[in-house]
């Protein structure tokens, strides 16, 4: 009774379900944006606020793009929040010697952590949840060790090329946003138009079939975890450049936020089905809603969290309900 899933959601008899999964998040996002613009006018739709939301979203988008590859391949990566913090600390440490080490050091170390994740999951076949839970602890420990237990905050000199590029605005758009857009575009092509991307879908749909088809299952698995760690590292470097410092305490809970963005975007945690555009909409949706709650102003930040959690549950409930009705080939307990 194994159902082999293909990269595209099943179409037969699932019009509403597949539409909800593919376009649900963007539609809700559009709706929320319109409501926000009507309710708050300039304060929400003005250039300053849009810039803030875009900058705030860019780090989450970078991390969530990597997470999408991992989740579509049937895995999960809990370590990204810690890797994000570690990259920031290492960028600040490396910045003491110049811009190149500030970028190379975090990419190297975080890439190795991703490789460790990938090898333990892809080759040693340990459950992704456990492996990345361990590297979550490990990377956070490393971040604290590199900053003398959080007692020393390395500052990035303001005259460094990295800082200048990181804090620059090109045509009014901040660098992290540009990087996020660029990465998203490349990822879109890689996931949908390359052999690697199709292999990611195939492995998530059915690792057994993928193996029998002769796909390099272990190698693809290793690659998605390296990719995820590298993208988290890029986000960490950009944050460090923006704030001119590396703090080992940032990014706690980022992994959960990224997973939420991916799931809201319609990607199934069981693997094999999902889109990057959905993830982008999911990430923006989370940030826009946070921003809207801030606009209300009278609500405390606690309510913001309550709304985020309830919102996540609602979206998942609706998706589960719709896809259950649509997918007759899948038995839901």
């Amino acid at each position: 009774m194994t159902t082999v899933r293909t990269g595209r959601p099943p179409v037969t008899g699932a019009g509403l379900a597949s539409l909800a999964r593919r376009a649900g998040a963007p539609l809700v996002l559009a709706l929320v944006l319109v409501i926000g613009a009507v309710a708050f006018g300039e304060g929400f739709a003005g250039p300053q606020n849009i810039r803030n939301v875009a900058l705030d979203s860019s780090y989450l988008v970078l991390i969530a793009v990597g997470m999408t590859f991992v989740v579509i391949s049937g895995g999960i990566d809990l370590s990204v929040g810690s890797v994000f913090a570690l990259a920031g600390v290492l960028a600040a440490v490396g910045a003491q010697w110049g811009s190149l080490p500030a970028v190379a050091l975090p990419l190297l170390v975080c890439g190795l952590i991703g490789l460790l994740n990938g090898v333990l999951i892809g080759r040693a076949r340990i459950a992704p949840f456990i492996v990345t839970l361990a590297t979550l602890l490990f990377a956070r420990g490393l971040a604290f060790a590199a900053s003398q237990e959080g007692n020393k905050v390395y500052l990035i000199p303001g005259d460094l090329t990295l800082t200048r590029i990181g804090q620059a605005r090109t045509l009014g758009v901040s660098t992290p946003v540009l990087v996020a857009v660029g990465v998203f575009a490349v990822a879109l092509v890689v996931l949908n138009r390359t052999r690697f991307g199709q292999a990611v879908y195939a492995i998530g749909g059915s690792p057994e079939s993928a193996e029998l088809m002769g796909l390099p299952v272990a190698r693809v698995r290793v690659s998605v975890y390296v990719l995820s760690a590298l993208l988290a590292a890029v986000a960490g470097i950009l944050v460090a450049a923006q704030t001119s410092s590396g703090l080992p305490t940032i990014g706690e809970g980022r992994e959960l936020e990224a997973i939420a963005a991916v799931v809201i975007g319609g990607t199934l945690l069981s693997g094999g089905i999902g889109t990057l555009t959905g993830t982008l909409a999911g990430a923006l949706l989370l940030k826009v809603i946070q921003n809207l709650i801030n606009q209300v102003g009278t609500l405390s930040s606690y309510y913001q969290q309550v709304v985020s959690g309830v919102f996540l549950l609602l979206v998942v409930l609706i998706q589960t309900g719709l896809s259950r009705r649509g997918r007759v080939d899948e038995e839901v307990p």
Partner: protein
Amino acid sequence: MTETASREGLPTPTRPAAPPGSGLFRRVRNHGVSLAIGVLLLFNLLFTPNFATVGNLRLQLVQVVPIAIVALGMALVVATEGIDLSVGSVMAVAAAIIPLYLGYGPWLAVAVGLVAGAVVGALNGSLVAFCGVQPIIATLGVLVAGRAAALVLADGRLVEIFDPTLQTLGNGSVLGVPVTLVILAVLATLVVVTVRWSVVGRRLVAIGGNRAAARLAGLPVRRTLLTVYVLSGVLAALAGVLNTARLGASDPSFVGLLIELSAITAVVVGGTPLSGGRIRVIGTLLGALLMQLIAATVIQHDLPDSLARMIQAGIIVVAVYVQRDRGGA
């Protein structure tokens, strides 16, 4: 295709059958946790001054109680192939409720806290059992919303509590044994009895092993899942209550923060596979004790906290790796 979440754990066609393994290796594999605890104890007895004092051993055991109680509930959930990320937030909710109802008497406050835990557990359970939401996502939403709800209840403040009954509950002793430890022992016994000899216990393991088969065999899958998440919620709430009683303060911002990770670690290191269908209660307790011993060793030797995290990470991976061929993990 109901067992989607466990697909990572399923053997693929090219994977060789579990190696028979030499006697020694098998023994290490089955008693890895006990062995690790033994090594750490030996190390501490030899190299840590004042380790073997009654006061210190007592402190270690008292400190392990909250994680152990939460881990007991987590083990039940994991045995059904689920996971409960919301336990830390449930602890916070229970802690926030105590000062609100203390005016009506300590026992009522404790009872309301436990009921709140049951309600949150029922929410988790309904989402998983009746709505078909994946456990990790359902409980993630509750994790986010739950802690925030606790902070709303407490207005984000730490509240000090002066109540003789709660004081006894948190710090008292019965015949020289801390009350919290007695509670843990009773709970652990109950869970062992439930899992070994009760109908619900057999059912939850059967559901974790193969949900489709369990349903075809006529087991009440949904009701059992609901029960398991409610139990996990109540146990987490109890841990929150005991924590509050011991500290003499309700601190919803920090109580139980990230405890879901420690509890999952204790469960997995103790030999309960995330793929469900098996539960090791004593192993879970030993797993919790091991994590506590690592933290204590690091603290007493004045090693940095970052090292503790990295050592824990290594132990998790090694423990799961050596157990992985024992069927399912």
